[in-house]
């Protein structure tokens, strides 16, 4: 039964319904006009063939009430810009600009510029909203410019120039940063760069002074043309290509250098491989993936692996190493994973709703939730059970060296109970059956293969 996509409603000309293995985009007469303009071009065929634009086939009979229905493949995992790393948002921004340039050369334009129109498949960005394309009419400005700056350019500047991660901002405000906010955030040494003056400070000033006056028609009459858009697109691309984020080596990024990681890696890999052979999962979610070692193992065994971590630096590195590998990445803090939000609280689905795994890896995770984030062990187990699939879990006892570091200045009476192995086994009992287990050489860590009990 097709269900409407709760995130597809802003464009009245086009909206999406979801089926089990495909996505149907329904178009009205205006949307159909855009599709006709797009689908006949070499630009469209080339972009689809190169994997930069999602495959799109018009169905023979649109449902009543629609002028046309376009069928797309359903993507294996949907992620949102606030779960992307710097390099992902940068690659998505370049794709958006490349497609706009290609579209203009083919007599088309893209009427919006939001990263929600881009997804990552096999480590590469792909544009998914064919409803955004329209025939370009001479004299029209680039309607999506402001949105491009708010949702692509400013978040990238925030990371590259100001040193602040953009994800919390994009998660908190789905429209992105305003030019006024960005202008106030610019550090002194960047304030007088021509690109900062133009796209940030001048835009902020003009937005403020010109608000409420319609000028689209006046611009056309004054001689605005596609060349001006192309100049802007090329300047923006060169600016964005120049942006770099130097990962400081901090926190998690040094994790692989910890002795227990290299010591236990082989045993954990073999334990996972055995479970993979028994279960043959197609979708694995690796919670606390760090450098993605186990995600890659899962992907090599043929699954789509979603590597999840709160450390943007390691995931940025993983993203760049994972093109074509079957590993997807998502930055989210597991003590506070992406919620269901947006219009009516459902426009953007929660991470857990989108993950839909048939195997969860929780290696090196639960002690961080229990000791660093103060989540009671009982709640951790209940949360893992919510995925309703087998879980490969590493239990870390209170006697472990890493726990001593995480506990820091907390006194034993300030910690939650149920931390000992025997207590933890009791917590697992109502939710999971232990199908395999293995104590690691340290004696303080135990691997469990957990099968959910029928609910």
């Amino acid at each position, binding site marked *: 039964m097709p269900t409407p996509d709760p995130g597809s409603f802003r464009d009245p000309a086009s909206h999406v319904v979801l089926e089990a293995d495909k996505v149907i985009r329904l178009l009205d007469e205006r949307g159909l006009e855009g599709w006709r303009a797009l689908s006949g071009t070499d630009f469209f065929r080339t972009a689809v063939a190169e994997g930069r634009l999602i495959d799109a086939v018009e169905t023979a009979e649109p449902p009543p009430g629609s002028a046309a229905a376009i069928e797309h493949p359903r993507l294996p995992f949907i992620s949102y810009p606030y779960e992307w790393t710097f390099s992902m948002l940068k690659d998505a921004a370049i794709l958006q600009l490349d497609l706009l340039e290609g579209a203009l050369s083919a007599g088309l334009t893209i009427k919006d510029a939001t990263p929600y129109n881009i997804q990552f498949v096999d480590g590469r960005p792909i544009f998914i909203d064919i409803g955004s394309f329209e025939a370009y009419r001479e004299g029209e400005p680039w309607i999506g410019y402001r*949105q491009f700056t708010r949702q692509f350019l400013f978040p990238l500047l925030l990371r590259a120039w100001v040193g602040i991660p953009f994800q919390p901002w994009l998660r908190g405000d789905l429209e992105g940063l305003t030019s006024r906010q960005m202008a106030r955030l610019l550090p002194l040494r960047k304030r007088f760069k021509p690109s900062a003056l133009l796209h940030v400070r001048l835009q902020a000033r003009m*937005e403020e002074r010109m608000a409420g006056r319609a000028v689209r028609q*006046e611009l056309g009459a004054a*001689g605005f043309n596609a060349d001006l858009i192309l100049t*802007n697109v090329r300047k923006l691309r060169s600016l964005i290509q120049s942006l770099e984020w130097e990962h400081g080596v901090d926190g998690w990024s040094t994790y692989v250098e910890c002795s227990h990681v290299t010591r236990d890696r082989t045993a954990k890999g073999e334990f996972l491989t055995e479970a993979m052979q028994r279960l043959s999962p197609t979708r694995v979610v690796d919670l606390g993936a760090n450098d993605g070692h186990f995600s890659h193992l899962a992907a090599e065994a043929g699954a789509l692996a979603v590597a999840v971590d709160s450390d943007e630096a390691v995931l940025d590195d993983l993203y760049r190493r994972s093109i074509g590998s079957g590993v997807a990445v998502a930055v989210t803090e597991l003590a506070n994973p992406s919620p269901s939000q947006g219009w009516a609280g459902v426009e953007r689905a929660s991470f857990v709703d989108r993950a839909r795994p048939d195997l969860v890896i929780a290696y090196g995770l639960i002690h961080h939730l229990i000791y660093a984030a103060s989540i009671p062990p009982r709640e951790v187990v209940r949360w893992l059970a919510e995925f309703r699939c087998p879980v490969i879990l590493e239990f870390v006892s209170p006697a472990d060296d890493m726990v001593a570091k995480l506990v820091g200045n907390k006194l034993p009476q300030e910690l939650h109970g149920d931390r000992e192995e025997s207590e933890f086994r009791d917590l697992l009992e109502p939710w999971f059956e232990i199908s395999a287990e293995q104590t690691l050489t340290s004696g303080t860590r135990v691997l469990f293969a957990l099968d959910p009990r029928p609910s």
Partner: protein
Amino acid sequence: MIFAYLDPGTGSLILQAVVGGLAGIGVAWKAWRSKMGRGGKTDPGRGESMSEATEEGSLPAEP
């Protein structure tokens, strides 16, 4: 006209002409002057003149 469901933002629209260099600055200036340069008179049928609203502190007349 392109069917836009987004509000492109007036300042941002004019700015993208400015980004286009000298030719664009000319376009931006011409467009802004044609918007504002009629002595603050309202565009026929569009019912807005912000210069009246801001300079004289009065509300734009209803069309």
